[in-house]
C-alpha cells in the first residue's frame, strides 16, 4: 500500500440554495478543489461521488457520469462512480478514493459528495430520510429518522443520567463554532434556553437538536504522497481510512446507546494509524442529532460511556478544550447535505491542519473524522495528519 495525501479541498457554501442546481453545486466544489491543488481537470484519473438520494430529492439517478460530465471530466472517459450509504455516502466516496490511490490502481482521484435537499417539501424530505433506516420495519410503522435518534436519547438519558441541558450544550457549542465558519448554514450563536424553547420534533429532541435540511457539495483530491509536493506545499497525510457496518434497524442492536460500528471502525483506524484516541488533536463527528455527538465521542474512545455530557459541559469539546469536536459547526450548525457531509468533514480537518481555519483555528497535528449512515448501520472513520 502506498502512502496517500490530500492535496486539494473545495466546499460550497451550505444552506438553502434556491438559485443553484444539483449539478452546479458539485461543479463549484470540484472547481474549488482543483484550484486549491493547482491542477487541471485533465489530470484526474478517477472520481467517486457520494450521494444519498438524488432519486428522491431531484429525481435523478446515474450521478457518477452526470457529475463527471458537467465537471468537464469526460474528455478522458475516466471511471466515475456514485457511492451510497445514506448519510455516510461521502465517507464511502473518500474511502474508495483512498483505497484506489493506496493500492496503486490510479494516481489522482477526486472524492466528492453532493446533496440537494430543498427542492422537495418538508414531509417528502422526512420520508426520503426515513430510507436511511429500515423502511419496511421502522419507517412503515411510523418511526421518523429523528424519532429513531430520539429513542437513542431516551435510552441514553435513562441509563447515564444525562441532563436535557447537557444535550442542549452540544448544539450551543456547535453553533458557536458555526458562527465562525463562512460556509455554515446557520452562522449564529444560540443559548441553552433557545434549544429548550425550540419546537419538539420527537421527544426529547427539539428543532435545535436536529441537523437541518441543506443543499451543498464538497470535494477533495487525493494522490500518492510521493507526488503530493507537485501540487501543494502542505500535503495532509491519510493515516487511516476505515469502515464498518451493523444491523440496519436500531431495534436489532446489542445496545441502543452504543454504535458498535463506530467502535469497530474507530478501532481499525487506530490500529492502521498506530495511534490511540489520546493522539488525536481534533475530531469532526457525525452530530446529525445532539445525542449522536455524545455517543460518537464515547464510542471512538475519547471518554468512558456516559461521560460525554460532562465533558461537553466542562468545555473540553469546545475550540479551546482538550479535544475540540466539530470545529466546522458540525452537521448541526454548518448544515447537513447528507451525501456531502463526509467530504466536508475531511476538508475541515485539512483546513485546520494547514492552519487555514481562521477564527476557528485550533492547534493540532492529527485530526479525525467520523461519518455515520442511518442510525449506525455504516460508519466511516479517517485519521489525517500533517
Amino acid at each position: 500500500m502506498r502512502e496517500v495525501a490530500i492535496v486539494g479541498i473545495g466546499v460550497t457554501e451550505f444552506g438553502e440554495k434556491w438559485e443553484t442546481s444539483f449539478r452546479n453545486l458539485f461543479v463549484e466544489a470540484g472547481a474549488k478543489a482543483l484550484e486549491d491543488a493547482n491542477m487541471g481537470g485533465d489530470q484526474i484519473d478517477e472520481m467517486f461521488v457520494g450521494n444519498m438520494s438524488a432519486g428522491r430529492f431531484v429525481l435523478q439517478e446515474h450521478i457518477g457520469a452526470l457529475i463527471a460530465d458537467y465537471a468537464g471530466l469526460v474528455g478522458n472517459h475516466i471511471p466515475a462512480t456514485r457511492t451510497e450509504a445514506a448519510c455516510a455516502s461521502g465517507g464511502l466516496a473518500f474511502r474508495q478514493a483512498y483505497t484506489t490511490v493506496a493500492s496503486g490502481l490510479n494516481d489522482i482521484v477526486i472524492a466528492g459528495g453532493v446533496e440537494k435537499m430543498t427542492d422537495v417539501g418538508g414531509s417528502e424530505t422526512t420520508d426520503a430520510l426515513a430510507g436511511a433506516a429500515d423502511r419496511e420495519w421502522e419507517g412503515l410503522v411510523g418511526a421518523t429518522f429523528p424519532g429513531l435518534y430520539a429513542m437513542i436519547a431516551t435510552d441514553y438519558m435513562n441509563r447515564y443520567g444525562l441532563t436535557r441541558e447537557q444535550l442542549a450544550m452540544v448544539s450551543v457549542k456547535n453553533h458557536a463554532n458555526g458562527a465562525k465558519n463562512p460556509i455554515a448554514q446557520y452562522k449564529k450563536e444560540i443559548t441553552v434556553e433557545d434549544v429548550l424553547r425550540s419546537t419538539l420534533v420527537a421527544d426529547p429532541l427539539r428543532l435545535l437538536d436536529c441537523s437541518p435540511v441543506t443543499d451543498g457539495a464538497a470535494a477533495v483530491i487525493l494522490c500518492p504522497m510521493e507526488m503530493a509536493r507537485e501540487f501543494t506545499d502542505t500535503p495532509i497525510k491519510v493515516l487511516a481510512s476505515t469502515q464498518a457496518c451493523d444491523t440496519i434497524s436500531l431495534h436489532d442492536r446489542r445496545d441502543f446507546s452504543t454504535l458498535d460500528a463506530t467502535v469497530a471502525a474507530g478501532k481499525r483506524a487506530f490500529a492502521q494509524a498506530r495511534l490511540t484516541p489520546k493522539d488525536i488533536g481534533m475530531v469532526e463527528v457525525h452530530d446529525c442529532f445532539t445525542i449522536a455527538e455524545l455517543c460518537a465521542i464515547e464510542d471512538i474512545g475519547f471518554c468512558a460511556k456516559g461521560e460525554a455530557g460532562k465533558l461537553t459541559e466542562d468545555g473540553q469539546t469546545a475550540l479551546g478544550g482538550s479535544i475540540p469536536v466539530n470545529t466546522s459547526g458540525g452537521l448541526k450548525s454548518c448544515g447537513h447535505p447528507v451525501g456531502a457531509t463526509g467530504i466536508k468533514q475531511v476538508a475541515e480537518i485539512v483546513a485546520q491542519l494547514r492552519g487555514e481555519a481562521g477564527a476557528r483555528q485550533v492547534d493540532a497535528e492529527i485530526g479525525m473524522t467520523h461519518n455515520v449512515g442511518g442510525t449506525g448501520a455504516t460508519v466511516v472513520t479517517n485519521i489525517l495528519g500533517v
Partner: protein
Amino acid sequence: MSVPRYWRKQQNRYRLKGTHCETCGKYFFPPRNLCPTCRRDGKIVDYEFKGDGKVRTFSIIRTASEDYDLQTPFVIAIVELEEGTCLTAHVVCAPEEVYIGMPVKKVFRKIIADGESGVIVYGTKFVPA
C-alpha cells in the same frame, strides 16, 4: 407504499408472525429467513409471537411523514417481546403515559389510511397491558 409490498408481509404484520431458528433457539421479528448466527446450519420455521412485551425505549413523534401526519403526536417505541426479540411499533396510549419498562401487549389496528377512499393498511400496534 405499494400494495404488493404491504401485502407480501401481511400475515407478519397482522398477526405478528416472525420466524424461529430451531438450531440456536433465537426468535426473529421482523422475520428473517437466514439465521445470522447459524447461517446455513440454521433451521428456520415460522413462529407467531404471543405479543406480550415491554417498552425498552420510546419517543413521541411530533413531525411525521405525510402518511402519519394526521396521527401526530403519537408514541413510537422499541418493544422487547417475551421471546427476547425487539421491534419498532406504535404504542396506543397518551404521550405522558409511556415509560421505559411499561408492559404492553399486541393489538390488531388500522395503521394508516391513504386518504378517504384509498387503501387502509392494518397491522400490529401495542397497548398498555
